[in-house]
């Protein structure tokens, strides 16, 4: 009975796609973990150290894996006509989340290429900024996961994401203020300012994801 075998295949496909989406979202957590490690390795041992190089390699591998998962998920959603009324929302959510990992990888590569000089006065705020950005990402991911599992928690995580993103902005501004108060050459300050801004942009992107999920949720509960 070809019709029924199609139905069962469709149902099992829906389960495996759901699992792929969660694996994809895990890559964002992993990528941020590696991103923080990368900065720590840079601060302690410099861009030419073995620790920095291997961490950057791992970050790139995570990015590649996430890209493959993204393609697989989008492909299955459209090929198998899963969640037909929401698949474009889910696909755009995956696309946006993928950009989060790409951004971290790009910052890592620029760190390797540009090797900016980081004055000791800003190190603490830099690590704090990375932590707050991590919190923003974590809550944006919780918000995204809730969209798939429990709609009623979406708004709660969305609000927390907004709060952490605003904290990230504050830490970033403070770090830049301290940076420009140091006696480093202006060229170094401007270069490092770009890095602070890029890290802050990761938090902005996480907030964008959370915003988008919140709108998708409103659409779903209508």
């Amino acid at each position: 009975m070809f019709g029924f075998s199609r139905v069962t295949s469709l149902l099992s496909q829906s389960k495996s796609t759901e699992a792929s989406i969660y694996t994809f979202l895990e890559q964002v957590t992993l990528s941020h973990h590696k991103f923080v490690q990368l900065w720590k390795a840079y601060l302690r041992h410099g861009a030419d150290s073995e620790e920095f190089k291997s961490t950057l390699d791992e970050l790139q591998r995570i990015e590649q894996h996430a890209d493959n998962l993204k393609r697989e998920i989008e492909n299955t959603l459209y090929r198998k006509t899963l969640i037909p009324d929401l698949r474009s929302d889910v696909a755009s959510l995956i696309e946006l989340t993928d950009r989060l990992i790409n951004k971290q990888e790009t910052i890592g590569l620029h760190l390797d290429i540009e090797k900016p000089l980081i004055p000791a006065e800003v190190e603490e705020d830099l690590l704090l900024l990375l932590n707050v950005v991590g919190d923003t990402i974590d809550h944006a991911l919780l918000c995204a996961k809730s969209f798939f599992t429990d709609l009623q928690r979406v708004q709660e995580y969305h609000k927390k994401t907004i709060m952490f993103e605003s904290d990230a902005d504050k830490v970033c501004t403070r770090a830049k203020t301290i940076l420009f108060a140091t006696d480093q050459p202006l060229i170094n300050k401007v270069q490092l300012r770009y890095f602070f801004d890029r890290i802050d942009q990761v938090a902005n992107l996480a907030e964008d994801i959370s915003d988008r999920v919140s709108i998708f949720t409103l659409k779903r509960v209508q």
Partner: protein
Amino acid sequence: MDIAIWIFLSSGLFLGWSLGANDAANVFGTAVGTRMVKFSTAALICSVMVILGAVISGAGASHTLGALGKVSALGGAFTVALSAATTVYFMTKSGLPVSTGQAIVGAIIGWNLFSGMATDPKVLSKILSTWIMCPILAAFTAVLLYKLVAASINWFRPGLFQLDKWTRIGLIIAGAFGSYSLGANNIANVMGVFVLSAPIDSAVWMGIEFSPAMQLFFIGSVAISIGVFTYSKKVMLTVGDNLIPMTPITAWVVVMAHSIVLFIFSSQSLSNSFVELGLPAIPLVPVSSSQAVIGAVIGIALLKRLPIRWAVLSQILMGWVITPILSALACFIGLFIVQNLFNQVVV
């Protein structure tokens, strides 16, 4: 079976084919249109269930139609079915929504007028009242079902993919139930007029006796199934979003409400249990599945305060009024031609 009988039955088979092509869309249209269920799966389930519904429970609604006009000559039955089928065909061709039930009732009244037989006002009013009751009942059922589904989702809080999975299963089950009800309720439209006139003997197959009506219903339901496979895909892909935007869950509610209403108007045992409880018997009348679907859609639209495309709705209502009149007229003219030009006994 004699070849002559097949020729006479051909108009009924044509009507069955057009019913399959049009009304399968009411059962599986939203599921296929929203891409939740593949057409081949829908067509297979629909065909099997229509046949089962027609053969097992088709008799109830057929009796009422028989009471409206006792078409006893095969030539008359042929013309009645042909004029109904032609009306359905032309209405569909001009893009007007049409009900096979209304077409056949109109044609029977046309036969009554031609043959000089009186149309029983009691039976006619019973049929007309169900035409009004059907969409209203469907609207109430849809509102109730929608509230029930919304409450269940709030209570169980299923995940996105889990909900998608359950909606798919629900759409298939509702579609199967809807197809069974469609077969049970609407087979009377297709083959009802031939029950009195077709000279078919009872047959025994695998120890089960099949009455002439059952055999006619089987042949008619096969014609419906062919209509489903050959022509309904196009209709299925265009139905659904015409009146209000549909989500898979509203699609399920609509199909389920439609199926329940059709089942109510065709189930002899349900009617009997009503009587046993001291309630009035349910009129077993072939109702329009399109009317049931439209009633359900309007029910949801009113509940969710969605904008209804009134222009489309008024066009649909116009179709409901025009169909029986046009069909009665076509039947009257058709009977005149068949009797005088082809020298066939029609009364």
